[in-house]
């Protein structure tokens, strides 16, 4: 029997990165096939290619044994492929029914046949145990219900091959159970399901086959009965340890940053930090590991002052920063390499020298008396940064958007390090940049540490974390669940802590 989906040698390049590198994927009809990998491993891109939202640069795609080329999702839908996106594609102010039928409305001379639509939706829902009220407004639905709407949407169009992009990421455990029940029913009905996940216990529970992707490459395809969660974690994060740094510890006992039982909510008001307590010393890099969405972003924002604490305290050099504005914190010596450089770290259409000021625009050498911009010295300073940190650019007058991602990142790293800071928050400092730039950024972080900076390093790249950190903590569900010695830890252990497969009681220290 032909494979339901066969991807062969799929390669997809984006400026500066290879998202998929000769990926091979073979999905048998009627199976639940899990695709595992870390964030940024290229899973979502691969699925978007399969759904016609993006086109591969190289490689072949076979659906039910026939080679296909997709120009848009329409082509995929026509071949009975449906996708449930990680970020739901739903219009909040429309009803469930309207969302489901949109684009494929049963009509009678242009007038929607609501009775027929309702009947069909309920029929689909009943067949797979997906209960939903078609007349509810989507905005009144909870997340699990929204997901059911997305699945019904796909089934309504007669999809036989379903792609679920991280369906469990937004669900609470009970909803995950229900989702899995639905998936099993779909399988019984003969549907093929591709689903993306990085929670290993879930994958092992539901999948018939597991393909692991790392850094855009297919690593292995395994059966769940043949592997343990530990094996999978190792496959996901890579087994080779980075060569241990032969370096002297520069850690002092001077505490630069201290958080005591810090708690904070996300934008919707649910708690995201649940009492984080940590210390960072002068000359120390504290690595924070964790699957994304476990509170790292909120912790960073709380330190920089963009997110208010709901309890506990964070202090810099023994001074509690309660009520400090972002600017005051910046002026007090906090540097910040944001995780999303385009959104948080750059003024795209501004020249480089004005970007080099960002975050330090109240300080020398960019302004005099905190008011007058000193353009000449700012330009000189920028030229120094460009030179010292190897930013490739024709001049400092070029707009930031003209630079490649790696060069933009080097500019940001250079900007923060060349300023007079005592604490550096580096969130995913090497994400999405090429290998050369990555090495350069690492080197600079080591220099900074040697020069006595305290560094908080948040990263999803375990190699980076283990190679750079003096101490490593693991964040899970808004809490620090483990403190590890990077010299002794294996990625396998780390992966187990991150995914909650193993839990350590409290910290070691």
């Amino acid at each position: 029997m032909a494979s339901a989906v066969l991807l062969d040698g799929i390669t997809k390049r984006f400026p500066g990165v290879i998202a998929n590198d000769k990926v091979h994927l073979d999905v048998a009809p009627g199976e639940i096939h899990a695709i595992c990998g870390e964030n940024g491993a290229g899973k979502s891109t691969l699925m978007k290619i399969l759904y016609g939202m993006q086109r591969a640069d190289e490689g072949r795609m076979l659906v039910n044994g026939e080679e296909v080329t997709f120009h848009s999702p329409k082509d995929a839908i026509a071949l009975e492929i449906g996708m449930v996106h990680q970020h739901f594609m739903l219009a909040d102010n429309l009803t469930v029914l309207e969302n489901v039928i949109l684009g494929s409305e049963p009509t009678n001379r242009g007038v929607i046949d609501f009775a027929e639509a309702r009947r069909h939706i309920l029929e689909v829902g009943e067949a797979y145990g997906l209960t939903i009220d078609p007349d509810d407004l989507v905005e009144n639905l909870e997340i699990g219900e929204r997901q059911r709407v997305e699945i019904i949407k796909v089934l309504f169009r007669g999809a036989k091959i379903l792609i679920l992009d991280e369906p469990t990421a937004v669900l609470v455990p009970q909803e995950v159970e229900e989702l899995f029940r639905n998936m099993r029913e779909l399988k019984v009905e003969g549907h093929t399901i591709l689903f993306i996940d990085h929670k290993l216990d879930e994958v092992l529970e539901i999948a018939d086959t597991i393909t692991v992707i790392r850094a855009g490459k297919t690593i292995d395809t395994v059966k769940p009965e043949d592997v343990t969660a530990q094996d999978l974690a190792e496959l996901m994060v890579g087994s080779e340890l980075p060569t241990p740094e032969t370096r002297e510890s520069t850690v002092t006992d001077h505490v630069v940053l201290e958080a005591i039982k810090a708690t904070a909510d996300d934008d919707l008001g649910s708690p995201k930090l649940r009492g984080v307590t940590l210390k960072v010393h002068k000359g120390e890099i504290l690595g924070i590991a964790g699957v994304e969405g476990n509170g790292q972003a909120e912790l960073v924002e709380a330190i920089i002052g963009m997110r208010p604490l709901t309890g506990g305290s964070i202090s810099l050099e023994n001074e509690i920063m309660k009520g400090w504005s972002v600017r005051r914190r910046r002026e007090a010596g906090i540097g910040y390499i944001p995780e999303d450089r385009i959104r948080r770290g750059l003024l795209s259409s501004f020249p480089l020298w004005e970007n080099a000021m960002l975050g330090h625009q109240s300080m020398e050498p960019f302004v005099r008396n905190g008011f007058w911009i000193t353009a000449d010295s700012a330009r000189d300073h920028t030229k120094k940064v460009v030179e010292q940190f190897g930013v490739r650019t024709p001049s400092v007058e070029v707009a930031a958007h003209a630079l490649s991602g790696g060069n933009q990142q080097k500019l940001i790293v250079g900007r923060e390090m060349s300023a007079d800071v005592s604490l550096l928050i580096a969130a995913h400092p090497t994400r999405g940049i090429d290998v050369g730039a990555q090495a350069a950024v690492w080197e600079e972080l080591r220099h900074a540490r040697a020069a006595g900076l305290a560094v908080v390093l948040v990263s999803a790249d375990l190699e980076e974390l283990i190679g750079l950190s003096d101490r490593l903590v693991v964040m899970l569900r808004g809490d620090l669940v483990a403190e590890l010695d990077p010299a002794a830890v294996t990625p396998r252990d780390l992966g187990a802590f991150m995914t909650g497969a193993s839990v350590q009681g409290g910290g070691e220290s």
Partner: protein
Amino acid sequence: MSGGPRPSPDLTTGWKRFTRGIGQSSVLGRVSTLSARNWILAALGIVFLLSLTQQFAKLETSDLTSSGTWIIALAWSVPIIMAGLGGIFSERTGIVNIGLEGMLVLGTWFGAFGTLLYGPWWGMVIAAIAGSLGGLLLALATVTFNVDHIIAGVAINLMAPGITRFLSSIHFPDRGGSITQSPTIVGVSSFSIPVLSGGIVFGWQSPDILGRIESWNWFFVSDLAGIMRGFTSGMSWLTLVAILIVPAATWLLWKTSFGLRLRSCGENPHAADSLGVNVYKYKYFGVAIGGALAGFGGGFLAVQLSGLYREGQTLGKGFIGLATMIFGNWRPVGTALGGLLFGFAETLRLRDPRAAHALLLLIVFGLAVLLFRALYLRKAKAASWIGVSATLVLVWYLSTNSVPNQLPKITPHIAVLGLLIFATQRLRMPAADGQRYRKGEGG
């Protein structure tokens, strides 16, 4: 709320807290989903407040519920309502339409000119076409060239009076008008409903039942009859067309696949695109239909209400239409109600300045209703705010004999600002309204 188990406290509370604000639909938004019976009850409630006000303000005016007032109020609300509906069609596809005023202006000129050439019916068709051309220009700029919606709208507002002034100076002086105005024109004829309001059928003068009841001057009963007579007599056929457009718009937007696709473009264009909906096409359609409606409103203003085109006669009615659209929560029926309210205020100002003063009392009664509601729902803070404002307005009413003549004119603007300030979470504009859209970006 139906559905799955929700044991986890964190996600649930957060999500609940998030949805609590927007989950409640707006006053008018909810009204528009009411059943017919509730509709009638709500309308009777409003009439009751009006007749109560009329009762107390007897010495000042007898115009609040007279059929004469409401005949005019209905007619004068047509341009506002049409502009508001035009805004709805445009913004439901996600295009903010500041250019309504300009499209209205185009409508006034072309309506008048078309009427001069071919009579009022064709004149109105030409007005609508002119308005939709203005809409297409807006769509070209915003959808195809991705120009910011506000900027493009402002440009249209600047350009439209230039075009009409230019055209007038070419066409009207020779025809007995001038550079700034057209010769007088005659609109379409009016009718009254037979039996109810004394309409004439085949030469037979039918009885005027409502008129008779109105003349009894009974509390509420005669007031109701007066208002109903306002809606059933002395109405131009064009007004009838305009009234019919309101339910037609609701039907088109909510009952047809065309309408669903159109609305989906304003709510989540990427979702629409992922399901194969041609987002650009529907945006063009929405803005063009919106322009046509605004053009119709402008034409009505010139042809039916003013009997001529005069430069600057729109007096910002496009912006009032925009305000009305917000007031009606981007829904046709609510918008029509808002337009009627604003048309009523304007009519009182023109007919009888002292009646406008009585409006203060109406506001007091309206606030009193809201006060009882707040007390019933045990919202102490809201109740105290409403109570204080009601008292202030009452003091104002009792201590004066008239209100500044300007007040009724700016009622719509103040009402909308108030709504945005105090009930902003109850308003539900299309989620992707005003955002630039490029196919394939995002999602």
